[in-house]
């Protein structure tokens, strides 16, 4: 079959023209975007103010993390919470002496604190703070449930090792130690706690109980 040279030329011109136009459109869009990108931001006063606030709050957060680190290097005791602020069903996050996340609960049995590492022993995710009906906390990364009393993961969970407990001391308003617990020993009561006035007592972690001091991993 013979092709009409005029038709072929027409198709070629049309095709070439379309290609040229789309190429021009794409190049000019790209060029415009590039110039706009290199020209810097275009923020309204309100946007700039909001953005600066966000930036500052994140800088504050970083600064507070640095302060936590400094405090852990220089202090023998670190305040965690007032006894009255602890809950039996939801843990309070804090940072231990090794700058790892940890959780503080109030024991539903004796009202004393339970301090446990929140760094999952499987792959290091931070476990959740909410207790389920079986007194377990969940690592959402690979679904390991840990019993907060024993620290043990549930049978068949990806995590095999227990979450280590963290030692604590309880001080009264005069900063006198009234009770303490080494991570691997029983609670030592120096003075009987008045369980009706829990806001008189504060919970601290102690450098002497930190895993480096006790030789734990």
């Amino acid at each position, binding site marked *: 079959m013979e092709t009409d040279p005029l038709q072929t030329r027409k198709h070629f011109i049309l095709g070439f023209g379309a290609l040229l136009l789309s190429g021009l459109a794409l190049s000019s869009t790209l060029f415009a975007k590039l110039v706009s990108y290199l020209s810097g931001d275009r923020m309204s006063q309100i946007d700039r103010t909001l953005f600066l606030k966000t*930036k500052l709050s994140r800088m504050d957060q970083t600064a507070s993390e640095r302060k936590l680190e400094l405090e852990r290097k220089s202090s023998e005791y670190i305040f965690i919470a007032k006894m009255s602020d602890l809950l039996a069903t939801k843990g309070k996050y804090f940072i231990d002496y090794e700058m790892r996340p940890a959780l503080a609960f109030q024991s539903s049995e004796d009202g004393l604190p339970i301090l446990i590492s929140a760094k999952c022993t499987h792959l290091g995710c931070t476990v959740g703070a909410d207790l389920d009906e079986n007194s377990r906390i969940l690592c959402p990364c690979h679904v390991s449930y840990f019993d907060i009393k024993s620290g043990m993961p549930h049978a068949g969970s990806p995590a095999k090792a227990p979450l280590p407990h963290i030692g604590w001391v309880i001080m009264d308003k005069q900063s006198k130690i009234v009770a303490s617990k080494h991570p691997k020993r029983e609670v030592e009561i120096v003075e009987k706690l008045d369980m009706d006035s829990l806001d008189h007592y504060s919970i601290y972690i102690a450098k002497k109980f930190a895993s480096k001091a006790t030789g734990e991993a």
Partner: protein
Amino acid sequence: MVKSNFFKQCLEFVSERIPVEKISYEAMVQKKSVPHHKMSWAYYLGGLTLLFLSIQFITGILLLFYYQATVSDAHSSVEHITQYVGGGDLIRNLHAWSSSLMILCLILHMMTTFAMKAFQRPRELTWITGVVLLLLTFALGFSGYLLPWHQIGVNATKVGLQSIELIGAYLPGELALLPTKIKEIIQGDSMVEQATLSRFFALHVVVCPILLLGILGFHLFSIQLHGMSEGVDHPTGKSEKFFPTFILKDLRVWSVVFCAAFITALCIPFDSFSPFPLLAPYDALGSTPPGIKPEWYFFFIYYPLELLPFWLIALLQNLLLAILFLAPWIFKNTSRKALFLITLVAAIYFFGITIFGQDLYNLIMGVHS
């Protein structure tokens, strides 16, 4: 005598793989031809990978104009780019989409090269440099994931680095401490923090790109020296000139693919595939949000890690690496038909687990989505 024989053999090996006598414009460009057969489409995949790598370099440099590699500023600087800098969302989307497309093309390029037995003598070094380039690209992907300092990036990095430490449990004596040491060297600190971000930033924008460019240079040079592999058992005898015919065709494919990638980046934010809690700034004092995953191109190892014992995956991973590096010698006498079947099985596994990995995980673990 033995020594000189060994030296002679080494010299022969190198001179056959790098035939310096062929270094000429005539041999490497004018006389180079591209075979024509049913698998010819595979010859475009390497070029496409190069196209996406170029996009990565250009958009990466542009992102560097605004990105700040500190834990307090990284996330907000990315927000600044995408929300307040003109065209910033497009540049970042293009960088993110192009990284995924580059890895996709690279994996397909490797699979087709394997199936076509293009690794055989004298192209062993081209293959090995290709494997190194694949690993470097994975390292770029892994290091880049941390840079926005969002929940998913930081937590996925923590999980990835912690996996290194797990190897220690299977090593004897003092060697057991080695993985932890390696992890801490990569991490730069006892946990994923500013030191990690600084190291990953340096790896992502300086170390890996420099290594990649050097090795890529040798890879391309070697391809030009040896020419295209025939790729099939029964060559058709047809071929086309590399320059200008194939190059022009290559450019045509590049333009179509670039347009598609450009429009995708313009219309679909890469982040739209993750819910906001995962893209929120990393919170060191809070719980890890559910849904932490690596990028899709690590699913082939991520889901098996979730479902099978760690030692088995570590063993299989090292075995796979050894097979990839030694492929030119292991599969020296294997037919193309067998190689094609192996590639088919590998492709079904890779794409199957990438697409259906979560469903498979839910099914096995009894999780209801």
